[in-house]
């Protein structure tokens, strides 16, 4: 906590360690580490981050084969979990602890110690005054003592002087603030170790139960086992969405909400809830958030004999603000296996010149543009495959077509037909459990409280010294000292002056005509 440069290091390993520790916990190091923390945070706002957007990271790396892997190795795509970022904030927090602990000890002692005694020459202090009062010295002192005690100054009273000190909460607040930062860091760690977070897409009418296999993506901390997932389930009954049709904000969503039926455990009673963007559903500490939505066109595929080989809706992922969405259908059971790459547009452009692009996010004129493939889907190769991508390496294209709901495309090779019967909506949910968030909130509240104490409370000392000049006249000297610049100190001294002169009960506007200035 030393604000001065540390002394030269003594010899030896222990001496060096002590020197290093002093350096690390010095104010200047804290300053530099804070700058480093600011700078280290920047790349994460420029490069896409795996935690937020893994797809964009992959694109970025694919698009720049030279720099992509280098930046990846350097951790630019996982900045906030990279070793160098951790190094900066861990050093900062070690420095913080090394800083705050000794300072707490000093402050603790200071709180029970009397204020420092009166300096020899009060009038040398920049804020000081001297005047005469027509009252005996002990009366003057008694008035000063009463005034200061009433205002909860801490006093050291001697025969002919008072030393007073106020504003200890400033340092208390400062320490509270720094300790709360540690608490917030602990909260983040608790959330990271014991919490979990998953994403899932649910089509309207379909259900979800909270087990690992049901998630599209799931991440948990070291101490979150699958066993800790609470056994709730829900069904997406209905998904409501509306888009703005005004000229100015055409197409921006004006409402989306999901009506669900949920059970806390398999045998529990069913309950209803509506999940909206700013109002998640909370079940057993886990929160279910509505984060996105889209379309799932419904396909019925028949083979050459007319028998249905596929009859389901398929989730398509939106690619732009107007929900031009892409997806694939894989039908390994048809002979030979069939694959469909599709683009769903909720509102097809009236002139088809612009290709399969939607011009409005609502389903005013839905259509599906398709490309059908036959051959090996590659599903048996064992490698995990994305359900949103068709591997056409071992396949042959058999044709292209566009369908509106209700229309059927008879495949040109005579192997069957594809019908689009309509579409469902789907909603994507983020389900999160963070046991650290209450601690973090507590830390934030304490930090804010400490901060305000530490910035708004002024620590200051005042001294009153009296010397009798006759039986009834006393020469009084007052002086004050504030640690930080404080415009109010002169005013404060003025009030004390009025108090010791016996004028405290009158308003401060009373002219001080009966004092004779000596300074």
């Amino acid at each position: 906590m030393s604000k001065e440069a540390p002394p030269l290091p003594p010899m030896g390993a222990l001496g060096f360690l002590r020197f290093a520790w002093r350096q690390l916990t010095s104010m200047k190091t804290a300053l530099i580490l804070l700058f480093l923390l600011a700078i280290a945070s920047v790349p994460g706002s420029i490069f896409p981050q795996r935690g937020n957007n893994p797809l964009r990271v992959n694109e970025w790396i694919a698009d720049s084969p030279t720099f992509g892997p280098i930046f990846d190795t350097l951790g630019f795509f996982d900045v906030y979990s990279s070793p160098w970022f951790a190094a900066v904030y861990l050093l900062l927090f070690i420095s913080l602890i090394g800083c705050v602990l000794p300072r707490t000890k000093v402050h603790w002692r200071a709180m029970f110690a009397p204020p420092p005694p009166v300096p020899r020459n009060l009038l040398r202090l920049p804020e000081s005054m001297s005047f005469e009062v027509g009252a005996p010295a002990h009366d003057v002192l008694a008035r000063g003592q009463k005034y200061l005690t009433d205002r909860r100054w801490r006093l050291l009273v001697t025969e002919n002087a008072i030393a007073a000190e106020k504003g200890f909460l400033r340092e208390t607040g400062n320490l509270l603030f720094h300790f709360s930062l540690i608490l917030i860091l602990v909260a983040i760690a608790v959330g990271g170790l014991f919490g979990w977070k998953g994403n899932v897409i649910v089509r309207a009418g379909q259900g979800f139960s909270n087990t690992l296999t049901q998630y599209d993506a799931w991440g948990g901390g070291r101490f979150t086992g699958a066993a800790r997932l609470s056994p709730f389930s829900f069904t997406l009954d209905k998904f409501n969405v509306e888009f703005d049709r005004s000229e100015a904000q055409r197409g921006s969503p004006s409402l989306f909400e999901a009506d669900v039926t949920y059970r806390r455990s398999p045998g529990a009673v069913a309950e209803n809830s509506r999940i909206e963007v700013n109002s998640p559903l909370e079940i057993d500490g886990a929160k279910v958030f509505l984060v996105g939505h889209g379309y799932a066109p419904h396909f019925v595929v028949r083979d050459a004999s007319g028998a249905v080989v596929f009859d389901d809706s398929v989730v398509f992922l939106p690619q732009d603000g107007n929900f031009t969405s892409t997806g694939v259908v894989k039908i390994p059971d048809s002979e030979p296996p069939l694959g469909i790459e599709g683009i769903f547009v909720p509102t097809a452009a009236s002139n088809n010149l612009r290709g399969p692009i939607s011009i409005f996010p609502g389903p005013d004129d839905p259509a599906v543009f398709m490309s059908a493939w036959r051959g090996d889907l590659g599903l048996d190769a064992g490698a995990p495959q994305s359900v949103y991508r068709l591997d056409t390496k071992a396949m042959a294209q058999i044709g292209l077509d566009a369908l509106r709901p209700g229309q059927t495309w008879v495949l040109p090779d005579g192997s069957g037909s594809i019908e689009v019967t309509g579409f469902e909506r789907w909603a994507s949910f983020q389900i999160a459990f963070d046991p650290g968030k209450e601690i973090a909130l507590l830390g934030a509240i304490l930090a804010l409280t400490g901060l305000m104490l530490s910035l708004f409370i002024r620590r200051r000392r005042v001294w009153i010294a009296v010397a009798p000049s006759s039986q009834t006249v006393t020469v009084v000297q007052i002086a004050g000292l504030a640690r930080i610049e404080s415009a109010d100190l002169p005013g404060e001294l003025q009030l004390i002056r009025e108090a010791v002169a016996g004028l405290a009960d009158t308003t401060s506007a009373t002219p001080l005509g009966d004092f004779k200035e000596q300074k």
Partner: protein
Amino acid sequence: MNATQLAGASNAAVYASMLTLTFAMVSFAISFAAGRRRIGMTQTQVPVAASAGSTAVLIRSVVDAPTDDQAGRRSANIAMSLTWLGFVLLLAGVVLRGVWAGRVPWGNMYEFSITAALGILGAFLIVSLRRDVRWLGLFIVIPTLLTLGLAVTVLYTEGAQLVPALKSYWLSIHVSAAIICSGAFTLAAATAGLSLVQSRSELRGKPGLAKVPSADKLRTLTYRVLAFAFPLWTFAVVAGAIWAENAWGRYWGWDPKETWAFITWVIYAAYLHARSTVGWRGDRASWVAIAGWTAFIINYFGVNIFINSLHSYSGV
């Protein structure tokens, strides 16, 4: 008034405010230039009616180069009145915009910007009630006009609807705190910048900008403004985190907007540390204050417009 008239009235008020502020800027500039031309000391004190035996000495100020300086003072006063007028007009513009949209007027970048301009002016005018800061006017009106200029040209949007993510009372809490901070940060950046100018002249033993306080006073003013703004910014960030937890299921996700809010916060924390570190108190601390403001501006314009973020609701 129907909706179109309301929107029109709001726009008219904003334009009227800009016009008024332009005049204010010119007046401030005249006053500033008048101050600069003043050379040497202007005031001599001549005792009059000093008779022997009397303790009272009447002192009359005689001003050497009065015309220039008086003109400067008059034009600074005119500028202050114009600034108040511009503030009231802008307030009307913001309020009418809110009435027209039927919600708090902070739904897109146009609305953030006119409100932020209001915040900058407001911060300045509040300080001006307590002390004489006419010398600061020019450096406040210029950023305000730039903000408004960007707002009406690049950022203007007719949109009234809020995207669902913004439909929350946290919007009012979080954004109003951030807007007050934008005013205070801008004010502090202006005083920090001026303190650097003054400190350079003081180092060379030159008089520095006339009417502008000494570097030391400017630094104290910067500190006071930031000591007020920093807890408020902390509050804004915490409120944002609570809102994010409510909307997206995590209170902190290192989204670019959050990241830059954090960077801004860390830099201002560094500023407060610099104030109590030997060797950092003076100009370096002022530079840190300017760096903090830069991070704030990057967050506001850069992230909203150029970076793909969850918070991209700029409406541009």
